[in-house]
């Protein structure tokens, strides 16, 4: 049995009016992809561009631009491949988070990615490059892009999980080099949440789930109340409130650690189960010496 420590707990029931929302299937087609690409200034002229398709996504490539849409989530990625995450050998970004956020908000508005009322800043990241000579230990470091991640907000509640995010990538001049948007459209309110479960039930669910699985120590860093949106390649029909509990799994020595996350439906009348059932590990044939 692992020792499970809750480093920070949510003591009280969240005071929020929430709903369970039904989501619109994205209905992605090549035609929609072209429309999306054109919104980013790409010509969409098939004489100049080409399509790529795999199981999960359609991509349209034209010149240095790449526009991808994911079939089941509708998630969108736009990149200027000649500049996105690329070191031009001289850029060294000095502008601060506030400047980056303001510029990213302008991009969100320009490309109609979302209403600014529906998002909040999640994180500002920076892409660094460095080098060092082994013999002399001389080297350099620079910052070559800034990625601003926005988190969706519904009913004044943030959307947690891999989805419900917009990321804008900026270069030294504050010009956009890439955009990620994973933001499923809401069709309607499917049903109101009649009552919220106590956060203590979420903690009990976490204990039940992880006690079967691990043997040493788990530190649960916090409990967040949020709506939950899945990743790029996942079908999602409903958006519902959850408790999200990021945690750290420690080894016996405490030297080897791994992060993970537990999610528990917060409504007393949830739709389905979000946390996947623990995987059954297959027995492998023994390797010969």
């Amino acid at each position, binding site marked *: 049995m692992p020792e499970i420590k809750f480093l920070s707990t949510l003591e009280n029931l969240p005071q929020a009016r929430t709903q369970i929302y039904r989501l619109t299937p994205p209905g992605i087609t090549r035609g929609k992809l072209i429309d999306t690409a054109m919104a980013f200034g790409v010509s969409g002229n098939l004489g100049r561009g080409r399509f790529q398709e795999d199981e999960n996504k359609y991509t349209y490539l034209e010149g240095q631009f790449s526009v991808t849409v994911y079939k089941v989530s509708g998630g969108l990625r736009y990149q200027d491949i000649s500049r996105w*995450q690329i*070191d031009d050998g001289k850029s060294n970004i000095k502008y601060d988070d506030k400047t980056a956020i303001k510029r990213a908000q302008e991009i969100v508005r320009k490309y109609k990615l979302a209403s600014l009322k529906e998002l909040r800043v999640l*994180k500002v990241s920076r*892409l660094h490059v460095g080098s060092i000579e082994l013999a002399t230990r001389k080297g350099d470091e620079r910052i070559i892009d800034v990625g601003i991640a926005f988190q969706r907000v519904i009913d004044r509640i943030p959307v947690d999980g*891999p989805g419900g995010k917009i990321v804008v990538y900026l270069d030294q001049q504050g010009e956009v080099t890439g955009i990620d948007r994973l933001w499923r459209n809401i069709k309607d309110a499917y049903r109101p949440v009649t009552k919220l479960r106590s956060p203590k039930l979420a903690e009990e669910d976490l204990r039940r789930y992880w006690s079967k699985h691990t043997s040493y120590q*788990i530190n649960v860093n916090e409990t967040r109340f949020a709506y939950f949106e899945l990743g790029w390649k996942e079908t999602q029909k409903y958006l519902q409130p959850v408790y999200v509990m990021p945690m750290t799994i420690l*080894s016996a020595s405490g*030297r080897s*650690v791994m992060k993970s996350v537990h999610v528990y439906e917060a409504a007393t009348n949830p739709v389905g189960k979000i946390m996947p059932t623990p995987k059954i590990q297959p027995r492998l044939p023994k390797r010969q010496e």
Partner: protein
Amino acid sequence: MTLQVRVGVEWINTFHNDSCNQNNLSYRDDHAVGFYNEMGSHGHSKIFNFGNDNAWETDFRHPDHGGDSLNWLDNVHFCYYSDHGGNWGNVMHICFAVQHQHCLGSSDKWRLGRKMLKWFVLDCCQAVLNTSKDHVLAVWGGPMQGVHLVFGFIGNGSDSWWNDDLGSDFGDDAGRGNKLANAWLDHAYSFWLNDDAIAIAAGASQSEAINRRENESINWRDYAVTSTNWLAWKWRS
């Protein structure tokens, strides 16, 4: 058209109640085997896939230190390891479920790239603890002996269904011939899991190391790192 490369993966989800015990994990096979299968789907050669008790520390340790790396890790071009990792004393350690011959692999006993290895993914925690030049150099300056690029995390990574596509997504990009360092940062960095990713390239000169960091794909397979005089790295945090 891309050059064909040889691929090997090792991963561990399940440990035993013995001296090698660690907390069990869930998604390391998704990561490593996802990478393996995606590379295979792009026509690359699937050489070995060792999971759980079949993953051995000797596969990574160089014969100078009594290991067998030249028949496994360094007998493929692209190796992907996924499990627990830790970094202390400027040495990267990776964990194994069986003591063959040790429970922990240690980077000070690796000679990465002495034979064939070009790219090595450490999909586990703590390839580096921070990005200070001295620390990156102290951990990786010694073990990188011909390998072109090493990929990993700054601090801790995640074992979660939120990022269980990491290996297959990276394998898809790598297998197609996309730029490797960018592909790793794209898929391994996570805004929502707070995972910070790093790619470290080697070169005989600064310009070569930077060129590899920025542009290397699997098509650079035969463009050897003749001497690891410089490291150039890229990370998002």
